[in-house]
């Protein structure tokens, strides 16, 4: 049996992993991989890893390695099970005591999860349920538009094409939106959108006729990106646009 195979068997690890670990160990200690493997194969794991020249592992930074023996947490306190051995356990030279860096308070993680859920529910109650509650628009008018069947299919196309990524259907009571039509109310059934890279389309039906809208969608003579739709889809989308006009639009 080769040293590699023997070391792998002794350590209970795949040979490739043992070979690579041995090469890395050899590079660090200035010895040859064969020597390292021979040491591991001979059951000298502890000797190989506790050599005084061994540089402290990065892992030892927060480890008991830098803590005097009497200050170390005992292995039994960590509920260690005696099972398979992996790769050589690095034990750094004992140095002066240094407080550990990963400091934590004794607490119950269940309380963190409970707090997180409670906070989420609170935020959702205010932020989602609040806006979802519709309120009457004092009888002045409604933003809900009666769409035809074709227009409703056109609205589905409007969403699936991602039109709302560039166009709003939301007129706000601000100076910037003066001239766009009646202000949208809470009962709006249009696709609001949150970006206005292109024009607002709340009342596009009152500004453009069907032919003009179709030309824009097809990208004919405009700087709008062309959409290649079949005749039915184009007609339905145009219907949705032409029917998009609020009461005062």
């Amino acid at each position, binding site marked *: 049996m080769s040293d590699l195979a023997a070391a792998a068997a002794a350590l209970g690890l795949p040979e490739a992993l043992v070979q*690579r*670990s041995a090469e*890395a160990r050899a590079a660090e200690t200035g010895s040859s991989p064969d020597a390292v493997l021979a040491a591991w194969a001979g059951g000298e794991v502890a000797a190989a890893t506790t050599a005084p020249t061994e540089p402290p592992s*990065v*892992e030892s930074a*927060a480890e008991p390695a830098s803590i005097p023996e009497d200050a170390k*947490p*005992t*292995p*039994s306190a*960590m*509920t*260690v*099970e005696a*099972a*398979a051995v*992996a*790769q050589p356990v690095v034990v750094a030279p004992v140095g002066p005591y240094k*407080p550990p*860096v*990963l*400091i*934590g*308070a*004794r607490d119950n*993680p269940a309380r*963190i*999860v409970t707090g*997180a*859920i409670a*906070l989420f529910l609170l*935020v*959702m109650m205010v*932020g*989602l349920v*609040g*806006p*979802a509650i519709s*309120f009457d628009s004092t009888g002045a008018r409604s933003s809900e538009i009666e769409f035809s069947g074709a227009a409703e299919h056109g609205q589905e196309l409007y969403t*699936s*094409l*991602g039109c709302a*990524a*560039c166009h709003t259907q939301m007129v706000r009571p601000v*100076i*910037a*939106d003066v*001239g766009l039509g009646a202000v949208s109310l*809470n009962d*709006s*059934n249009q696709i*609001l959108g*949150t*970006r*206005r*890279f292109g024009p*607002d389309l709340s009342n596009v039906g009152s*500004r453009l006729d069907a032919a003009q809208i179709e030309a824009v969608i097809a*990208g004919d003579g405009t700087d709008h*990106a062309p959409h290649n739709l079949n005749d039915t889809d184009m007609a339905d989308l145009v219907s949705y646009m032409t029917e998009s006009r609020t009461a005062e639009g």
Partner: protein
Amino acid sequence: MTDTKTADNQTLPDQGADASRVTATHFMVGAGFLILGGELLLLQLLSLYFDELFPISYGRLEAMANICLFIGFAAISLIGGAYYVLPRLTGARLWSADLAWVGLFGMSAMTFVGVIAVGFGLGEGRAPFGTPWWFHIPMVFLLVLPLLIALGTIRNRTEDHSYVTLWFLLGGLTWLPLLYLAYFSGDMPYFSSVASEYISVFFSAGFLTMFVITVGTGLFYYTVVKELDIPLASRQLAVVGFWSLGFAGVWWGTAQVLFGPGPDWVSGVGAALGLAFPIGALANAANVSLTLDGSWDRTRDRPDLRAGVLGLYLAVGVALLAALAGFRTVASVTSLTGFWEAIEYTTIAGVGALLIASSAFSSLPRLLGRQLIKSRARMSNRLTLIGSVGVLVFLAASGALSGYSWVGGSNSAAYIDAGEGWAAGLDGVGDTLLLIAVIFGVITFVGQLTYGAAVIGTAATGKAVEQEVLVSKPANEAEEDE
């Protein structure tokens, strides 16, 4: 309250090799999706300027990029980071590595399914993913898995003290499925258009803040003290940062629909509570700065630490801008514009990418036994920072200018007929700013490619170094201990 050391030990029950593999694979898969999502994001930016160039519309490109970056990159990578840290903080091996594999394969598959569905027009168009309703059902279940694994690991813990990272991980992993469930509910017919829109903006903002920044920050709290062997400056500041991010998470989203048809009080509450976002970001950045006080020179050759610090500082900048835009006077110019596109872009492609890079650069060498390719890691940090800040500045400026043009156009009645603002009157200034932002977007994309090259290159060709394997105590030693 007694402070003590958290385990972070190498002697754990049973073998942990499979947990290491699944953790490292999360980072590598995430890097792959970053490249794919970054490419889509770049096409999205390009299509803003060259709007007739692409056969797929801007809206679909945006949704496809979001699926890749939010789920494929950020969620998968951060979940990988959580799987790396959890055993080291709890003294217990990762509970059910098999379930972690299922989650990874499931989320990867769903990312592809979502991108293809949206690309072929099968989606329903609701921001940010635009996916069909059936996409959400498996996603909710898949996003619950990391929380289950975390709780299962913690249940077996041998360390009953919690380092602050555990707070951030538990919070982020708890909020992730809840946020997604709320987002899913927006597809339900009983929600009005207005409510559905609010749910979408809440989800986008919540995902970025309550998950990406929260978990990313928590992982960096682990990385910084672990790598430099210095204690955290303040546990209290970290806790303030944690709860502020959780509280702020969704509120800055409402500023995007300020003056919209929702109740007025939501805008007011959103503006006030949105201030918690910069408070949380500042608390975390200050905490890390205080922690590094006297040790800054030790971060010079450490791309993992540099990435985390840059990510936290960039988060402060983004948070301040987002909170500022929550005020009505500012929102009257910035809402509905590219200003918010800039905020979201930089949060995911800048802040999120840097925080994730920090965790990946720190953990991969230990998980794989391969030395990090530092030159690529450094280059990735540099390009990601320059690119994302450039996009933030110029896209936000372009957006603010658009908003200003709407106000000006309205005052002059210049745009009533066209209904599309006053951009023509600006003699292309807004377009020029947009073009500069696109150029910075190209730089970000090169940074993303470099990140992928650093992560995958480290796994494939990195020089062999000692691999960290969480192990059981040798049988003979355990017997001696007894």
